[in-house]
């Protein structure tokens, strides 16, 4: 029963959130919801209001208007219990450089009120999870950027929060460190954590996230499952076709089929790949039936999806915010 309740209460529920800095409207009627045990991407151009939203969620900013709830607790009314359930990793390294890794984690474990006898085990566990156990006695100042980011992630996990709020966790990391970080995030999702991640690296978010919120100029442009975002488009359905070999007049022959609007051969291909745009009235199944009548050996046939980059560009506005 408790599991059901846990599932039905959103991890984050933001309703009509608005905030202004000295007359500048940073957020305007921002509304979105993040379900528990999911990995939710939060993307937007620079100055869109991502960090402001994150800070409001993690109780570091009092919004001018609106309501935020974390696992049903109001951020405004009960910030202390919210802080206990979240782990916030800012977009900069919050490191005490003169401490060792262990001291740093122990410091935050104490700040979260963990009992002394528990701390050693917990720190060992989070360091194992982030693959930093071998460096526990190293000074933080001597660690590489990627390692510092791992320690920072370990710090976020030290009080075992249900919700992780990560602001640009992969910024400044090399490709290996970035891939390893994403692996850790996947592992955390598998462990039942809710991860709310703000990032500019859209390709990785597309692979990683279950749902996404796109924000631009303080307003939410899209919020929902990643699948919906990538499939939703005002354009006509387009399919990718690959043939087993190269044939003559393929484009003309396909174009003559009923319900086909357009056929293009993508650039830099070997003559076996085609993009086929169908009329909205024609189903993929019917088209496939008529395609088989042409007696062409088909290697693969799939619907063309928007990638996150394209969706992002479609939804956000060009130029800087004034």
């Amino acid at each position, binding site marked *: 029963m*408790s*599991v059901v309740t*846990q599932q039905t209460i959103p991890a984050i529920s933001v309703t009509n959130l608005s905030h202004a800095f000295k007359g500048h409207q940073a957020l305007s009627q921002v509304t979105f919801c993040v379900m528990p*045990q999911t990995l939710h991407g939060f993307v937007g151009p620079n100055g869109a209001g991502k960090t402001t939203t994150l*800070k409001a969620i*993690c*109780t*570091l*900013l*009092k919004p001018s208007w609106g309501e935020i709830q974390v696992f049903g607790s109001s951020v*405004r*009314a*009960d*910030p*202390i219990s919210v*802080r*206990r359930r*979240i*782990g*916030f*990793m*800012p977009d*900069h*390294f*919050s*490191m*005490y*450089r*003169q*401490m060792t890794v262990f*001291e740093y984690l*122990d*410091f*935050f474990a*104490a*700040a*979260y*009120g*963990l*009992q*002394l006898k*528990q*701390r050693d*085990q*917990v720190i060992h*566990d*989070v360091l*194992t*999870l982030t693959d930093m156990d071998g460096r526990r006695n190293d000074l933080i100042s001597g660690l590489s950027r990627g390692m510092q980011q791992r320690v920072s992630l370990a*710090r976020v*996990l030290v*009080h*075992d*929060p*249900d919700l992780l709020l990560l602001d640009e966790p992969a910024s400044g990391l090399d490709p290996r460190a970035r891939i390893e970080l994403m692996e850790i995030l996947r592992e955390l999702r598998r*462990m*039942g*954590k809710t991860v709310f991640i703000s990032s500019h690296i859209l390709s990785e978010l597309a692979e990683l996230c279950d749902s996404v919120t796109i924000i631009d100029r303080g307003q939410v442009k899209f919020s929902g499952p990643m699948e919906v975002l990538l499939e939703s488009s005002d354009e006509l359905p387009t399919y990718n076709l690959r043939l087993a070999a190269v044939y003559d007049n393929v484009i003309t022959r396909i174009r003559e089929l009923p319900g086909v609007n357009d056929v293009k051969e993508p650039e830099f291909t070997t003559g076996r790949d085609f993009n086929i745009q169908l009329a909205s009235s024609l189903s993929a199944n019917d088209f496939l039936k008529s395609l088989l009548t042409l007696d062409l050996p088909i290697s693969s046939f799939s619907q063309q999806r928007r990638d996150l980059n394209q969706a992002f560009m479609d939804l956000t506005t060009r130029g800087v915010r004034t």
Partner: protein
Amino acid sequence: MIPELPLLRRELAELSSRRRTYVIRFVGAIIVLTTVMVYYNFHMALLGSSISGFGSANPHRFLGAGAPIFRGLVPVLFVSVQLLMPALICGSITIEKERNTIGTLFVTRLSPMTIVLEKLGSRLVPMFTFLLLTFPVLAVVYSLGGVETTFLLGTLWLLFCECLLHASIGLLCSSWFATTVTAFIWSYGLTGLLAVFSSLFAHDLPLALPTPYYLWIAAFQGFNSSGYGNNSLLSQSSSGFLHPLAQMLFVVATTIPSLMVTAVMVLMARVFLVRRAFISSASVMLKVFKSIDGFFVRLNDRTTGGMVLMKDYTSLPLFDPVAWRERSKKSLGKARYLFRILVVMEGPTLFICVGAATVSARSDFSGLRDLLLLVWGIVAMILAMKGATIISTERVRETLDALLSTPLTAKEILTQKVAGMQRLMMVLAIPILSVHFTLLLLNVDFREIMSSPATILIVVWYTLGFILTTFLTMQILVWLAVLFGLRSQSQSRSAMTGICLIAGWVIVSSFLGRPGGYVFEAFSNICQSIQQGDSSRSGSENNETPTMQLNQTIAAVICCMIRADGGIQANEGVLVAVGNPYVEKTELYYAPSRSIHAALTVATVVFLWQVLLLLLIRMLTLRLAPRMLGRFDQESEYHTPEVQHFTSPSGTISEMIA
């Protein structure tokens, strides 16, 4: 062809867009102009009262009155330069280092010397504009007569040299140090040292001094045994026969050492600008301590083969992590580093105290009181700087957000931060307590005291009083500094705000609350008028002396309450009362010290007031803390949070890993 000077233009544009520039200029102008008005009115009143009867209404009697007013005004201008110039220039180069923009400057066509000179120029311009504000007043004073043209022009030249000298000191500090805070402290430290050095040798070697202020005194005012008198160099050497142009040349010639020192410092600033452009901003003190550590470890290895009697105890935080970090991870928190600070401060203090006890036969021991003042000055500066930067350091190092996202309340964070400073306060209190204790030993005859139990109690009271007052005053300074520095975004700004505001409080309250000062006289007069009213109603004649003493005691209490050192002053009254040493009437505690009961009452009242003041400042700081730190806390959360247990619905990380 006029050079383009892009850096100077940028700096001036930046300075003009800062609100602080106008605030400083406005406050400075108010202070200078008020001083001028006070001098002007004082001299005019003096002149008016000296002439009575026939001819007293003649306006010509004021002719020639410009000279004394001018002599009173010019030191204010020199002191203004000494106080403002370091603050203006100390951040000129360090700010480029802090913003990581110095490399960008180096790759432009600007040479290092051009950068240094344009930085110098950019800070001299606001200083000159500030001085220009006083020129209309100088013109009025000049028009009263008595100020020779040589005197005026010589003063202006010396003021110019003073600006250059102090600007070059600040510039050198700015190019040497990595942070504005360090450059700020060292600029004022060097300025203070120069002032002390100059005042020591001013009598004997006036022309060899590099400080234009003392050259001005030597040239136009002169020194005598009790201070300054009319035995100036120009009046002695020329006897009135030296041509004005020759007098001017003489003044200019005397400034050659000062200008040479300035030039050397500018050149050094140019050298260090390049050499120390990318130095680490890590704590200088920590570096010094670490290098000393290394030296002693090597020495220990050679002499004893590395034998260690007491090893460093490595602790971990229990439930006060912020206080633990302040104690264990900061250079001014670690026990062994604090011990070194104690040795550095306590060594000379004890030496002077023992010297005073063995050599001095007098009972006033004014030297020890000056030493107390000096030690308190150093202590107040350290505490103000440390307290004011307690949050801005976290902000600058971007660690504040992580700390604020924990369940620790703003109150707990601040309380633990200040608690982490307790060790430092205890160490800094030791030299102060040493001086107090020496004063007690020197002022009190213990053979007499032992015969009377009441006197023993009073001595114990005094001892407890100076211990408690010392810690109380330190706590007030720290909490005030924390309050002032809470909102600042940079360490330099918070340190400057903390130090300047506390220094302002100390100076202004000491000026207003001194015996014979405005507050003292005002309250003395109010009490007197009330008592006169009562006596007229009752129709009885009161004894004059006790009434006056009572008035002055009440005024002393009020003054002690507004002064930063009020508790110390009030407590000294007890010592004077019980020890009965010589005390001058100009001391604040003179009136209460005439009677032991009055002295004890005053000390108690002032102590209680300071406790109340501390509580108020602390409460205000803690109440403002959540907003100032940039987050919101509940009102009801001001209690220790319960210990967090692992109750995650999805199980612990350990369980999940398993």
